[in-house]
């Protein structure tokens, strides 16, 4: 009902504005939107796992006679200049695209978690060193970092994954560090100390799960960003190699056909947007829930 009747706050509690590293993404609408988003996401994932369920057409077989067919009954999304069925390519593109986003996010999350926890729990010097490094990396726009990484590593899928991960690691590291520090000072960790819990157990049981939680939720949103970043690299000609029907690469190829065969670029682009959209929608919802569950 009202929040006025609740406990008096002690005088000393000064409300601080959200710090840089404690940025919370806003909540998205729930309800039917969430159901719809989850359903679409499930379909996309299914396409990634088993594209054969949705189409029997090969995504790589060329059919030059039927090149550049406009979307229609025979080819729902049309065909590209080699006569490959775009519907099938977009479907088969789900796997490499999702894996790329997932891989990048996992790398980033793992790296960020490792660095963040090391900084928060590794003592003053480790903290200083790691956080200065994170500062340095944060001072560079993610795309610049990814560009640097790609020119060093090369452009294979794995490398693009790593490059995007590198770009996102410092951000995650900061979040994890901040969360870890908050958790470490929390009442329940204090309570566990009071129970004489050995430090390793304390970290594994209370600090890690609670510090990583918010980041994992953020990571769902980060997945969408990874997907978009990967397609950005493809656009700059630094994406994964072409034979695999990865959406970013397809979109990048299709942009040369805007005037003549719009569908080549539009459908992969729409696939990226749709995936990022539903992932973001679900992710933000999850975050809202998470926040609500862990706070009053």
């Amino acid at each position, binding site marked *: 009902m009202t929040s006025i*009747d609740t406990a008096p706050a002690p005088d000393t509690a000064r409300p601080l504005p959200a710090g840089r590293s404690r940025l919370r993404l806003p909540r998205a609408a729930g309800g039917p939107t969430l159901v719809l988003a989850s359903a679409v996401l499930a379909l996309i994932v299914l396409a990634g796992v088993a594209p054969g369920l949705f189409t029997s057409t090969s995504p790589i077989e060329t059919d030059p006679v039927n090149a550049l067919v406009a979307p229609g009954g025979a080819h729902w999304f049309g065909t590209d200049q080699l006569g490959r069925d775009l519907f099938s390519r977009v479907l088969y593109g789900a796997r490499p695209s999702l894996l790329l986003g997932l891989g990048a996010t996992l790398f980033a999350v793992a790296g960020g978690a490792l660095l963040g926890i090391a900084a928060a729990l590794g003592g003053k010097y480790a903290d200083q060193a790691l956080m200065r490094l994170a500062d340095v990396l944060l001072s560079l726009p993610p795309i610049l970092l990814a560009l640097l990484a790609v020119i060093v590593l090369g452009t294979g899928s794995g490398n693009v994954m790593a490059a995007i991960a590198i770009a996102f690691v410092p951000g995650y590291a900061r979040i994890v560090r901040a969360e870890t520090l908050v958790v470490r000072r929390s009442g329940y960790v204090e309570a566990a100390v009071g129970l004489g819990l050995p430090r390793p157990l304390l970290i594994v049981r209370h600090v890690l799960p609670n510090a990583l939680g918010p980041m994992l939720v953020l990571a769902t949103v980060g997945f969408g960003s990874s997907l978009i970043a990967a397609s950005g690299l493809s656009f700059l000609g630094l994406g994964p190699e072409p034979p695999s029907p990865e959406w970013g690469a397809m979109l990048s190829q299709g942009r040369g056909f805007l005037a003549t065969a719009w569908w080549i670029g539009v459908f992969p682009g729409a696939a990226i947007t749709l995936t990022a959209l539903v992932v973001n929608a679900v992710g933000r919802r999850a975050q809202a829930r998470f926040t609500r569950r862990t706070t*009053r």
Partner: protein
Amino acid sequence: MSLLRVDGLDVSFGAVRAVRDVSFTLDRGECLAIVGESGSGKSVTARTLVGLAGDRAAIAAGALDFDGLDLATLTETQWRAVRGRRIGLVLQDALVSLDPLRTVGAEVAEPLRVHGLLPRAGTGERVLSLLADVGIPEPGRRAAQYPHQLSGGLRQRALIASALAGGPELLIADEPTTALDVTVQAQVLDLLRGLKDQGTALLLISHDLSVVARLADRVAVMYAGRIVESGRTADVLADPRHPYTRALLDAVPATHAKGTRLAAPPADRPAAGPAGCAYATRCAAADDRCRQALPAPDEQGALCWHPGPGAGPSPVAVRLRTRAAEPAPEEAPPLIEADRISKRFRAPDGSAYDAVKEVSLTLRAGETLGVVGESGSGKTTAARIVLGLLEPDAGTVRFAGEPWSGVPERRRRAARLRIQAVQQDPLGSFDPRFDVERVVGEAVARAGVPRGRARRARVTELLDRVGLPAALLERRPTELSGGQRQRVAIARALAPDPDVVVCDEPVSALDVSVQAQILDLLADLQHDLNLALLFISHDLGVVHHVSDRVVVMKGGRVVETGDVTEVFANPAEDYTRELLAAVPGGNLLRS
């Protein structure tokens, strides 16, 4: 004719009927207090009277008459002319009720600007005089400051000044003193009394009957949306008719003799039907008639079939299981010996201050040592040092004869189970991912109970011990009420069979009636388990009630210490006297 006449007010939010059939009147120069626990509908009533119950609120009333104005029919634009100009509103905790990003002066001037009461040039002067009127020294300096730069008392005065700026005939004060230390609380109440004497009508909302009793001409007790009893303050205090009113009065520790029970044991009776008495679940005297219908109010407005003192046993009469038979605490060996401990912190601006300065205290087995002081007096820091969570800069702590401070955590770990803690914010002390079973289970496991059935049995036993049903095992702490959470925290603290429990403001966040139950529980447990309690509170009444000995702290130092009855009866220090004088209903402390 009354200034304000409310007749048959109903406010609902969807299916929830927050306020039901509430009627009262208020005259100029009169103070009416509406008293009730959280969720009783008192704040909604207050908000409705300024048209701020919210968009989702459905309001119906026989009459909602303010000086001939029908408040129920006002449009938003008409409301704006009334708010701040004719009816002022003061909320609790000025730190968040004043816009923290604007200067005090700007906040106080806002009603003047909004209603165009003064030319721009005159505003500043008026603000200063308003601040002076509410007793803020150096109004010129304070007007230029931000709310966080003012002390709690000054802040609350400034908030009142801003509500008064438009010269309202009616001032609604919703928990105006809840966040304040006792001494400041008294000052603010005095200020409000002054306003009343000048002819302002005052509607006071509070959860604490003893606080408003000082000021209100009449009180109305609300429970579950209804006014269950109302009348002249003196009458109600002297002769509470409704069981809930009595429970409220009984729950105030300051009104009790030491060693008596504060609350009736939770009755836990069947809930009433929609037309019946909502209090029936908690009422010892409830019968079937109570669950089916409400009686007409008696002459004191009490909505009860069993009004009057005769209904049910008054908890006051029940003495706690006697303590006199126990060995005198002095003879027990000291468990905790803190010797001249000090701790210095750095403030955000870089300056250092002493949170705790040369504090010494001793706690013996089975005794309760109360630590009392206002906010910032160093109570919590001292507690954390005693708990071994903070290293003192100077001084030593020994636990059961062994060094406790200045040793590596490894050496403390084994003994940690013997000294447990209950915090003010139980929710914050639970891992948010854990349910009740895991919260308590973790502590049970530390005590060496193996996984599986044995552990579950022990957890259930502990929950039972603190009066919680096993049904709550799988609940998350966020799904529990404040009192239930504190019981879970206590259960966890008891799990390893500790010798000492450090309770840091264990009841400050709770409604009085719940507070009473928890205090009773702690007293029972101490008796049954021979616990030593270090009991920290800002509430002198509470400390007096539970403690054997007391330590009074101020500014990080101990000002006075001794037997609780003696200290409260014959305070040696001015500060202690000052504290005692400010306690609502505090005269009983010296009895």
